[in-house]
């Protein structure tokens, strides 16, 4: 009876009410499903993000292993350490690495793969992993807890067995993005070899070792930079390089106290004797052949990780004027080239200043026709000679500086615009005399004759100094400026070697060898380097 009543009651509800009720239920379910979807998406996104950046999340690993605990305590989520957890032969193993620094193919193929394939009865331990499973050449066992993070940050993979708190394995799986050996960009030569250093210190060392197969070749390595921990290698030949200079260089490098060294130039700054010296006391070498030649001379080559330039010390002024091209062809060609380079250096330094001295102070030193021609060329120029030259020199420096950074595909266009604007238009407008255009162009061309760009920069500064001196005092100021430059040159030293050697102090034999530049005639190494073994042949 009751059942019937109930049935009849339900039967009493209209079909439309049932549908509405079902719709409400469905709507509430849909809303709930959307919320779930949303939260799932957020979770997936966050997990994806983490997996992209860090692989497994280190903090989520539950273990009592002291090595992992140590890293977990230190670890900052942004450090980017990935962890691969494996359970093999009843053992938990962790491989810690940084994805960006690791050759993952090597890691999977020669480290993780062999471990996962382990199916022996014997329980896994460090020795078995080291000696029988991991298929890599550079694997070491270490126990220092504090070094684990350093290893990982350098790009090594650290393998930790969960129940082993005594030792862990370090496998060299470093992968560094590097470019292949390419032609030099700044040390251009016509005939010289073209293998330039790259940013990879090991490649650079291999290039040196490839050329110098001498057992006395010493590579002293050290780490500089509290945070960057940059590898620096000091390369020299033990029985040729003067130990005093080697010790000086190593001492200076070891005394570098800074948070980061990223390039050779930073090391160079620390090696300077005096911050106010104008001329560079170390050479910057891009070509491995040049570096090897310097090492054979008894010099010290400094390679910095992450930089494609090596430092050479000690370096004298005259060595900046030597090019590897001088080794080719006749000796006379080298002599002529050196002479041209010195003339060019003098022209670059002094042409503009001499123009000011003559036009504005001492035009009586000119033969009458030249004096008249010079006056005619300046007839419409509204500026005085000093201002005129200063404007042109600044414009040329702007062009030079901009040409370094102009993208290659628009470089020629900008060059043409510069030449037209600064050259032809300025003359046509009567703002600049044609002679000044000739002088500034010629002197700029002269600056590119010198093989080493490093020595040009002090000349650039001194050129303006000479301009000001000459602008104020005429030829007297010019002479005074030259004197200051020469005083500076002869009073400098590079790691104890007189900077103006072999001219000051004068050494005829070294000077002759420098001028002739012929290896067959130069039987001895330069005397000023004080090499223990000074005989070449």
């Amino acid at each position, binding site marked *: 009876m009751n059942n019937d009543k109930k049935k009849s009651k339900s039967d009493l509800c209209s079909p439309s009410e049932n549908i509405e009720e079902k719709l409400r239920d469905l709507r509430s379910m849909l809303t709930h499903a959307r919320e779930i979807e949303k939260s799932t998406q957020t979770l997936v996104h966050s997990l994806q993000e983490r997996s992209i950046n860090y692989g497994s999340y280190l903090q989520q690993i539950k273990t009592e292993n002291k090595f992992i605990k140590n890293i977990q305590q230190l670890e900052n989520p942004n450090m980017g350490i990935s962890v691969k957890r494996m359970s093999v032969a009843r053992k938990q193993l962790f491989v810690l690495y940084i994805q960006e620094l690791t050759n993952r193919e090597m890691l999977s193929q020669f480290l993780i793969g062999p471990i996962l394939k382990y199916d022996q009865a014997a329980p896994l331990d460090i020795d078995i992993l080291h000696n029988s499973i991991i298929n890599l050449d550079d694997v070491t066992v270490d126990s220092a807890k504090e070094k684990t993070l350093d290893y990982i940050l350098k790009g090594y993979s650290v393998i930790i067995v969960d129940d082993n708190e005594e030792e862990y394995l370090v496998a060299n799986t470093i992968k560094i993005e590097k470019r292949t050996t390419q032609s030099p960009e700044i040390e251009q030569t016509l005939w010289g070899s073209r293998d330039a250093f790259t940013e990879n210190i090991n490649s650079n060392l291999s290039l040196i070792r490839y050329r110098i197969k001498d057992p006395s070749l010493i590579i002293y390595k050290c780490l500089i930079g509290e945070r960057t921990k940059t590898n620096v290698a000091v390369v020299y030949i033990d029985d040729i390089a003067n130990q005093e200079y080697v010790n000086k260089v190593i001492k200076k490098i070891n005394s570098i106290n800074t948070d980061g060294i990223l390039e050779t130039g930073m090391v160079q700054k620390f090696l300077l004797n*005096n911050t*106010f010296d104008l001329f560079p006391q170390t050479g910057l070498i891009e070509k491995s052949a040049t570096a090897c030649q310097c090492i054979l001379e008894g010099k010290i080559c400094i390679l910095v990780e992450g930089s494609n330039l090596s430092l050479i010390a000690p370096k004298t002024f005259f060595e900046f004027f030597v090019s590897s091209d001088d080794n080719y062809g006749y000796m006379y060609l080298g002599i002529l080239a050196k002479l041209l380079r010195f003339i060019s250096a003098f022209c670059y330094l002094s042409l503009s200043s001499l123009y000011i001295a003559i*036009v*504005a*102070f001492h*035009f*009586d030193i000119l033969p*009458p*026709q030249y*004096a*008249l*021609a*010079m*006056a*005619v*060329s*300046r*007839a*419409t*120029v509204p500026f*005085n*000679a*000093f201002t005129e030259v200063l404007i042109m020199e600044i414009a040329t420096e702007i062009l030079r500086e901009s040409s370094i950074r102009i993208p290659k595909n628009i470089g020629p266009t900008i060059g043409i615009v510069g030449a037209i604007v600064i050259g032809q238009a300025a*003359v*046509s407008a*009567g703002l600049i005399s*044609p002679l000044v255009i000739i002088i500034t162009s010629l002197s700029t061309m002269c600056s590119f004759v010198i093989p080493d760009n490093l020595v040009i920069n002090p000349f650039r500064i001194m050129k303006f100094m000479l301009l000001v001196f000459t*602008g*104020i*005092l*005429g030829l*007297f*100021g010019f002479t*005074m400026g030259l*004197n*200051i430059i020469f*005083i500076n040159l002869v009073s400098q030293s590079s790691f104890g070697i007189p900077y103006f050697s072999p001219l000051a102090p004068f050494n005829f034999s070294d000077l002759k060898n420098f001028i002739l530049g012929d290896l067959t005639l130069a039987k001895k190494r330069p005397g000023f380097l004080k090499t223990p073994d000074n005989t070449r042949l």
Partner: protein
Amino acid sequence: MTKKYVSLLLVIMLPTLLLTGCWDYHDINMTNISISTGVDIVNGQIEYTGEVAKIAPAQAKGNENGGGGIGVYNFYAYGKDLEQARAAFDAGVPYPHFLGAARAVIFSTSYAKQSIAPYLHRIAQINDYRKTILPVISRDHPAELFKLKVESDISVAFLIEDMMSSLTKQGKAIYPTVGHLLSDDDIKTIGELIPYVGIEEGSIKYLGLAVLKNLKMVGTINLKDTSGVVYLLAKKPSITENLPGIENKNNTFSLLTSLKKRTFNTDYVDGKLIINIDMNFDATLNYQYYTESTDEKKLKVLEDLVAQSIQGKIIKIIAMSQKEFDCDFIGFAKYFRAQHPLIYRKINWEESYRNADFFVNIQVNIHNLNLADPNARTLYFK
């Protein structure tokens, strides 16, 4: 270290800034570039004239110089004396003067007869002036010279200077400078010679040499007679001697002589001044008007003839200096003073020179027949 450098800089710079006069910055195009100066006497006043460079913009077109370049304009100024004339000139020019490019200073005959010493001393004292500037005496008024339109050179001064410079390099003239004149003037006993120019057939010509005694013009030597002076004074005289043919009298030998060695030896014997002139010449046969065969005998005759010709010219000049001008313009006094300083102090040079005996010994060696001799082969290879 820095302190050391600063001190060094100060030590070098301070004396410079305090003691030197290098603050005279002045651009060359902002100066009045004087090319030449003429000095004359007109109506009892000093006429100061000359040429100044007209600096036209290099890219200007259509000016009288044919589109840019160097032209000149003439200036005229008058005054009771040099200073007044100069002041009158200065009053009309836009820029300060630059005299370092001046090529010649031209004196009129009337001014030179009064004495060119004042103007030479002015040149000596003005730093701007080159002491190597060429002094010239003009037969015509300098103002007339400057009015001439010169087609072959930039200006009148350039023409005269280039002409004299070229002739001197060829060994056909002498190039005295203001410095030489002033130096010779210190030895009061000697005279001077300076180029003499004038207008001939509408253009400027080198007419000969003007003779100065105590820097006053006393006469001139015609161009055709100047060879003797050139032989005696030029650094490397090289003059063409024309000689009549040896067999064929209608023929003419043209020989170019060049000095090898010249020595002046002086002596004073029995109150008489003796001057020995020994000169060795090389000669080259330029050509013959009509080719005539030569042999060693004929060559010897030719050599003697050339020597006689040179000797004659030298003797003529010496005679002129002794008799016509009564002035040692060759400067033998310098040699005598150097060789016999004690005697020089005691004697009256002018008097002694007037009565001096000259011995001129000329040696000529014809060493080059210039392949003009058809018998040369048989002559030298027989």
